[in-house]
């Protein structure tokens, strides 16, 4: 093998590696969530007035690239034991059998099944939400703002309207919607960092 042929082989090998690398980057960017600057909140209506509660612990696996929505996905796992509303009685009730029943179902999960663009940096994700032992389709709308589209820092903010009774969140008296509305708005504001 002469020096020229060896040089061509090296060049081919380099090209092969480069194309493999670019194929890998076709899978959307992976983002990590900075929990200190992110929040996941829920907004029930109680006796005609709205209040906000928060999920203090959740993990999100986010693969998202505005240019490659087909390979983008959202997976959020919420530790329901971290639900806080500012009142210990109400927090205790949320953990109980009438609501999340965390002794049996401590986690809530959302897995996206598809993401489409709504234009202007806005997106809609459809997916499966599981609470207690019930899984239902829900729709999430969000904005994605990133100064550098290929990574760096980004912000994902959005909301979803969940019907709590579809999931059995509200047993006994709380099946009634007279004092506690069925619709509960979920909001999130996530500080993201691209890791590829």
């Amino acid at each position, binding site marked *: 093998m002469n020096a020229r042929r060896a040089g061509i082989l090296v060049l081919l090998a380099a090209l092969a590696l480069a194309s493999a690398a670019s194929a890998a980057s076709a899978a959307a960017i992976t983002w990590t969530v900075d929990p200190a600057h992110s929040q996941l909140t829920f907004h029930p209506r109680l006796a*005609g007035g709205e*209040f906000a509660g928060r999920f203090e612990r959740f993990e999100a696996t986010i693969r998202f690239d505005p240019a490659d929505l087909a390979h983008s996905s959202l997976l959020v796992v919420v530790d329901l034991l971290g639900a806080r509303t500012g*009142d210990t009685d109400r927090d205790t009730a949320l953990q109980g059998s009438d609501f999340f029943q965390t002794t049996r179902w401590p986690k809530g999960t959302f897995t996206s099944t598809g993401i489409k663009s709504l234009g202007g940096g806005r997106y809609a994700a459809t997916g499966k939400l599981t609470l207690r032992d019930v899984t239902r389709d829900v729709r999430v709308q969000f904005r994605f703002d990133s100064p550098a589209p290929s990574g760096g820092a980004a912000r994902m903010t959005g909301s979803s309207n969940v019907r709590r009774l579809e999931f059995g969140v509200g047993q006994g008296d709380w099946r009634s919607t007279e*004092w506690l509305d069925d619709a509960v708005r979920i909001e999130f504001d996530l500080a993201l960092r691209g890791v590829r």
Partner: protein
Amino acid sequence: MPLRNTAEAYGSLSKFLHWAIVLLIVPQYFLAEAAEELPDGLEKLQLIDWHKSLGMLVLLLALARIGWKVMNRGMPGPIGEPWQRKVAAAGHGLLYLLILAQPISGWAMSSAANYPVTLFGWFQFPALVAENHDLHESLEEVHEVLFFLMLAVAVVHILAALYHHFVLKDGVLRRMLPFSRP
């Protein structure tokens, strides 16, 4: 009966506001006590919601009453010795202060525990203070102490009115009675 106050008697609006506030405050104690007895749940929520809505209505009526009083200088003049007038003015001032402070302390107490405050669900008032567990506990005590203070001043107010009516027979009570003429 004129709407405005005259030198002889309170007008119909002042009388209406005075008695409406009385009628709204009386059930407040019983609603709060009944709710206290109940376990957490829908029934308790309903009673507390009534208590809160009535309280906010008292606050609005108290503001209207004080506003109307300020706009309506021609109210019945004071009666009695100078010291009696001073005591009466101080007592009335304290009552006005309490019918404002009591609902405001309750409102803040709800806000501190992140509970919404509405007027029978028709209208939501903004949170008065941020969520704060310790503040909620303190305000709960303030709300209770203010109630007993209000009760004490109201009892003196009623006894004074009865004293004027039955002992002095000077027509002071009749000036505020509904449907009565001086």
